[in-house]
């Protein structure tokens, strides 16, 4: 079956790939672009491990048809740090023991970033709501909620 040419912005850089019909964005990012930060958890939209930002909006990359991001901007965890300097959210996750096995962390960081980008001073309830689509089986969520609140109190996370 013929492949489709696809161009989009990946963490601020233009990329061009060829995808098979029906390829999801998670497979395109991991296998064709080599960005391993979004994770495959369930493939059903239940866990949030594959969360990415598309034009600034939180989406599940495993349920996104790759072709639909043509000409759009896709941001993953790989793009939020600045060289060796961690993003304030990453720093807060490390300081607050918000990651244990780490598998859910990239998705939760993107969900938290989507929140702080539009609401720099969220309430605790708003943080809980923002990460409600992400499952963590290690931490019990409390350290994660505290980390997001800590990042918010440090100052507005970088856009």
């Amino acid at each position, binding site marked *: 079956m013929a492949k489709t040419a696809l161009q989009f912005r990946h963490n601020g850089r233009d990329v061009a790939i060829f995808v098979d019909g029906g390829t999801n964005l998670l497979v395109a990012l991991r296998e064709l672009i080599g960005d391993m930060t979004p994770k495959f958890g369930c493939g059903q*939209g239940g866990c949030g491990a594959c969360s990415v930002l598309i034009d600034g909006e939180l989406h*599940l990359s495993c349920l996104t048809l790759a072709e639909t991001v043509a000409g759009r901007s896709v941001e993953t965890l790989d793009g939020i740090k600045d060289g060796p300097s961690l993003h304030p959210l990453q720093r807060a996750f490390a300081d607050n023991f918000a990651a244990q096995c780490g598998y859910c962390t990239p998705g939760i960081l993107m969900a938290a970033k989507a929140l702080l980008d539009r609401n720099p001073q969220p309430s605790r309830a708003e943080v809980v709501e923002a990460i409600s689509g992400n499952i963590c089986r290690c931490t019990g969520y409390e350290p994660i909620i505290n980390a997001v609140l800590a990042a918010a109190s440090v100052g507005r996370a970088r856009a």
Partner: protein
Amino acid sequence: MAVTVRTFASTGEAAAALSSDRGARYFGGGTLVMRALNEGDISISTIVRASDHALTRIDATGSRVTIGAGVTFARILAECGLSFLHAAARSIGGPAVRNMGTVGGNLFAATPYGDFTVALLALDAMVSVQGGLGSRDVPIEEFLQTRERQTGTLVLAVSFQKPASADAFRYRKIARIKPKGGAVITLAAHLPVSSGRIVGARIALGSMAPTQIRARAAERALEGRTLDGATISAAAAAAIEGTSPADNALASGWYRREIVGVHLRRLLSGQE
């Protein structure tokens, strides 16, 4: 397995492509069809998309509301004219699912999903569909009863009369995980009041039958009465009538039957 992706500018062309190919499925937000593809559903050989802007239009200015099938739950939540639907929209998925999932797709979501459709059923929505032969409006109840045969039709929009007051429309979803989780049961009630009495009550239930259904016996118990304790008790007792809930991982059918009256009572009496 690779599938063929066909994207059309107009809904007419998309509908024709859908109706002419048994293996074609319309692709909206992806939360149902991409999931099926990820799970290796080989019955889907072609996915059809339409970029027509009419599919993402909301008209909530007048007394009759029209919502394009491609409108996401995040868009519903951003629309102040649709505040009566915010509880239903917020009860679906996490933020990412609400940014993706659409009103039209929800009509096809099987138990324990399809919560928004419960709200639409209580609102007596009309579903605009386009088949190979043209477009028509189908009452939502009829649409749901023939849902299995609707895969070849394209849903364009849903429309319904706005409830007269905030109190006239109520919604409640029972889930084990808050704020996100599949439904144990879902309830919605539209209770128009005319000179103190309920006229044209509609109660809709999710997860109480293979598709979303109306609780007709409970509606009859409310009809023409004031919403007092005796009426609410009669409606709650009748809620179970005509239901056939299934067992699943979230709850047994027995449990669903036990609690549906309890939650209908709470919904009608305005309890949290």
